[in-house]
């Protein structure tokens, strides 16, 4: 029951808003209630297997049911969505035109993400994600800034291509299981995979398609160029939701479907994943350093951090995947905070060109503090969730094949990924220094700080980051049962 509420509350609210309900109030209430429900679900979560399973049969012949369920992994994702949605709605400023449509789009994206994460059925998993694509297009195209229509088209077509490749992979997956065991239900598919019913050859092909499809959605190198442009042109709440939540759909898919069900495929394509993720970390990291605008820098930095999550996924052990899952959560929150503050700055200064800004912390102390906390969180400062997760990722990846005779592929990959920590500190601190520290150009002397009410969403985001930063075991405790089953099978 609670899951139906969590998934359909944003959907219902979106429809109510479109029908004429007061936009901001409804949106705030809906996201607030959803967050509350998610926290209740977190407390009530059962240790093993899936909790709160609700199932509505759709088609017996195709073995298609509308099934929702949560385990540790999906709970973390749902929690992330709930928090970022509330923050995104709260951070929405004055919308000059079509205010109702704006809030409705935000809530539809949230509903799509929630549904996708909570779905136990392959069909609805895909369908809910597609639900979220069109509102993204509208948000960027109508309420964006800069070259918004080009950015909107680019992201939509690019991601649709990725979704298409993904669909091919999922269909192949469905059909690769022998007739008798075939089902859209993830649990049954997992059973079939565990008992070795998916042939090794098929696994390799399917995994490649899934990697490509999900990869495009996650901005895996070299399919990442849609991200910076889209995030720079998007209105801040849309950027928060997309970079914070929607991008993570692909990672969730890899962790839920590709990794557990296609072990042979994972093993076979591990080298490719490692090369591409290093491209994300080192290459995109360097590109980020060269950026001269704050929004482009944040967009590229979000692409770069995907590399760490990929490293956790590639590590092939429970330590790395735990780290990956927690890093998804951490990164989503920190990037949401950063985009939110950047959006506020852009509203006031009209430009995010780093050389035009400077010393803003003097006139906008709250923004300076919030951005500083977000910046340090994202570069992996201990105390924040990102560091706890990165520790697990690095340890997990380094562990793979480690012996004392020298460095092998995973150790080299970890080494290069660690250097990424230095790279991210370089660009983030440079940007922070250029924006908030140093001497302030005359024209910004009269800027106003963030409105006082925004202290609440900022506090919420920071509190969540600090909570997992100080007590990562909270998440490790719920994630381990979810991962342990398929790691023990291997």
């Amino acid at each position, binding site marked *: 029951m609670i899951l139906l509420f969590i998934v359909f509350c944003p959907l219902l609210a979106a429809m109510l808003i479109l029908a004429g309900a007061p936009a901001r109030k409804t949106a705030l209430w809906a996201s607030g209630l959803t967050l509350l429900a998610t926290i209740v679900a977190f407390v009530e979560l059962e240790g093993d297997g899936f909790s709160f399973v609700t199932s509505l049969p759709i088609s017996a012949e195709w073995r298609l049911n509308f099934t929702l369920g949560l385990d540790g992994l999906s709970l973390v994702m749902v929690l992330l969505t709930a928090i970022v949605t509330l923050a995104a709605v709260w951070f929405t400023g004055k919308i000059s035109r079509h205010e109702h449509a704006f809030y409705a789009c935000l809530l539809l994206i949230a509903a799509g993400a929630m549904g996708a994460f909570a779905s136990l059925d392959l069909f609805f998993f895909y369908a809910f994600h597609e639900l979220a694509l069109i509102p993204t297009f509208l948000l960027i195209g109508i309420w964006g800034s800069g070259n918004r229509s080009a950015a909107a088209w680019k992201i939509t077509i690019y991601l649709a291509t990725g979704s298409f490749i993904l669909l091919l992979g999922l269909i192949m997956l469905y059909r690769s299981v022998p007739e008798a065991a075939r089902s859209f239900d993830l649990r049954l598919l997992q059973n079939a995979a565990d008992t070795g019913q998916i042939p090794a050859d098929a696994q390799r092909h399917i995994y490649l398609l899934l990697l490509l499809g999900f990869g495009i959605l996650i901005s895996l190198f070299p399919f990442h160029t849609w991200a910076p442009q889209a995030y720079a042109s998007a209105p801040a709440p849309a950027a928060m939701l997309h970079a914070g939540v929607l991008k993570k759909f692909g990672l969730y898919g890899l962790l839920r479907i590709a990794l557990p069900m296609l072990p042979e495929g994972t093993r076979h394509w591990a080298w490719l994943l490692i090369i591409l993720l290093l491209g994300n970390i080192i290459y995109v990291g360097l*590109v980020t350093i*060269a950026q001269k605008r704050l929004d482009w820098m944040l967009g590229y930095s979000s692409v770069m951090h995907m590399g760490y999550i990929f490293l956790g996924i590639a590590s092939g052990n429970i330590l790395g995947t735990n780290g990956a899952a927690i890093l998804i959560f951490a990164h989503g929150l920190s990037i949401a905070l950063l985009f939110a503050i950047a959006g506020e700055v852009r509203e006031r200064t009209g430009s995010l060109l780093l050389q035009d800004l400077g010393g803003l912390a003097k006139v906008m102390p709250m923004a300076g503090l919030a951005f500083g906390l977000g910046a340090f969180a994202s570069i992996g400062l*201990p105390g924040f969730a990102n560091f706890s997760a990165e520790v697990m990722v690095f340890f997990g990846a380094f562990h793979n094949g*480690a012996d004392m005779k020298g460095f092998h592929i995973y150790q080299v990959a970890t080494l290069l990924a660690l250097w990424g*920590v230095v790279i991210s500190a370089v660009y983030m601190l440079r940007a922070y220094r250029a924006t908030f520290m140093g001497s302030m150009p005359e024209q910004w002397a009269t800027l106003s700080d963030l409105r006082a009410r925004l202290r609440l969403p900022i506090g919420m985001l920071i509190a969540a980051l600090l909570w997992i930063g100080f007590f990562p075991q909270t998440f490790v405790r719920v994630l381990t049962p979810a991962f342990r089953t398929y790691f023990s099978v291997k």
Partner: protein
Amino acid sequence: MSSLLPWSVLLLPLISAAGIVLITRRWPAISAFVSVGSAVIGFACSCAIFVSPPAATAEFTWIDLRPLLYVPLGLILDDLSKMMLLLVTGVGALIHIYSLGYMRDDAGKSRYFASLSLFMFSMLGIVLANNFVMMFIFWELVGLSSYLLIGHWFERDSAAEAAKKAFLTNRIGDFGFMLGILMIWASTGSVLFQEVASQMGRITAHPGYLSVAALLIFCGAVGKSAQFPLHVWLPDAMEGPTPISALIHAATMVAAGVYMLVRVAFLVQASPQALTVIAWIGTITAVMAGLIATQQNDIKRILAYSTLSQLGYMVMAVGLASGEAAMFHLFTHAFFKALLFLGAGAIIVMLHHEQNIWKMGGLARKLRVTFFTFLIGTLALIGCPPFSGFFSKDAILALAFEKNTAIFALALFTAFLTAFYMLRLVLVVFFGKPRSENAEHGKEAPFVMTGPLLVLAVPAFLAGFGFFARTFLHVPHAEGAGHLVPILATGAMLVGVALAVLLYRKRESDPIDFAIFRRRFYLDEFYAWLIGITQELLAKIAAFFDRWIIDAGGVGGASGATWGVGSLLRFLQVGNLQAYAFLFGLGIVGLIYFTVFG
């Protein structure tokens, strides 16, 4: 109850920092009171722990993924950490009190004290951590606190740049540190110091691996303790308020590197190659910094380079396989260096923020207490018997004499340099005639600032004596060393003093000019150039490649190709009904052909 005492020492500053940020931000006086209070209570608790240590302390789980990784949050209370605890909280408390005076009129007072409390929390965490990962956590937090404090006056471009430089340089060190931790964990399966120490047998069978791991861990110390080549952040860190320079960049944070090396001595001393590298890096740092200091004109910079040089001594001692000698010097250095910095701070403030020594002069008569305590600190620093510095430096020199003559010679040369540049400083600042308006009108600092100076002068004088050394630091009593080393050391010191007096007595400006020392061996310029041709160039190339080849070429190409094919295919739409019918017919024929004959 007593097992919670160490935890309260650690957590009290954190609570203070959080309280200031969340609650008392708008009342700076209260924030200051909270912070100073927490520091003083912390010191009191440390004394209690020192006198009657608790049997065991509570341990909390941070990450538990056994059998792969287990990271607890636990405290270690052996002689080393108890000593360090006293040092950090003691000097910290004094500097908190000093800051009350120094930062009285500062606009960001709440922010300052919050950062200061955060620093205390982080530093105490390093001291008390019982495993590598926990130490790393606090290691980075210390880096953050340093960033916040160096950049306290963030509206100044120079301060903002210095803070950034400090954090980034430390990050590079942390990169090596983390890699080293990974290697240790991969081979022993644990991150806890005690467990790794007992598993050392596993790694010593692979000396190459061990050396690399040890050197990588040393990387962290190179960054934090500002050794060559990652020393460039420390002089710039003088942009921060002087109490910070005293606390962080003299007594505690930079000492963390040395402390860490001593904590993992079981690892470092198992690899002779690592020890050699460490010793030489320490020596190079000591000499280089000493040479640079002789030509600096900013009082804080001179002290900063002096700190670098003394840290070099400590690292040298670690490399000569004696953690005890290193800790001894760390201990005495903390007192007299803090004293010197606080004294410099008093001078700077009373001269309205003048920092150039050539604009001072004749202050001995005007700032008597400051002069007196500064002199004590100087005598301790240059190793004049019977001050504390003499004993600790002597311990290191004796070690070097025994183990490596080349290093000994260089260490002796550095002792000469130390005496030279410090006396240069004292002569130019305190003697002669006042060289500027500010110097003319200087008067003594208020008691809240001179008080700590007097308190610090006592250990600066006494801390070296055998009683302290042997009881607390287990420095072996070198019977057989004879008197050669102390005589040589004192001789070098006297030569330095004499040369300084000769050159700098009654001068208006600097008579010698070595550009290479004044320009710090051009290392800052070299690094800027190096970063320019590697990181910046690569970044530009990558950005270009991304924008024009992947995006415009790849993605733009794909969409352009689609457009192109579409614009070609549209010519099939001739608009002529009969042409369509004809094509239709052709298609049918083809279909029939392929179904029947295909």
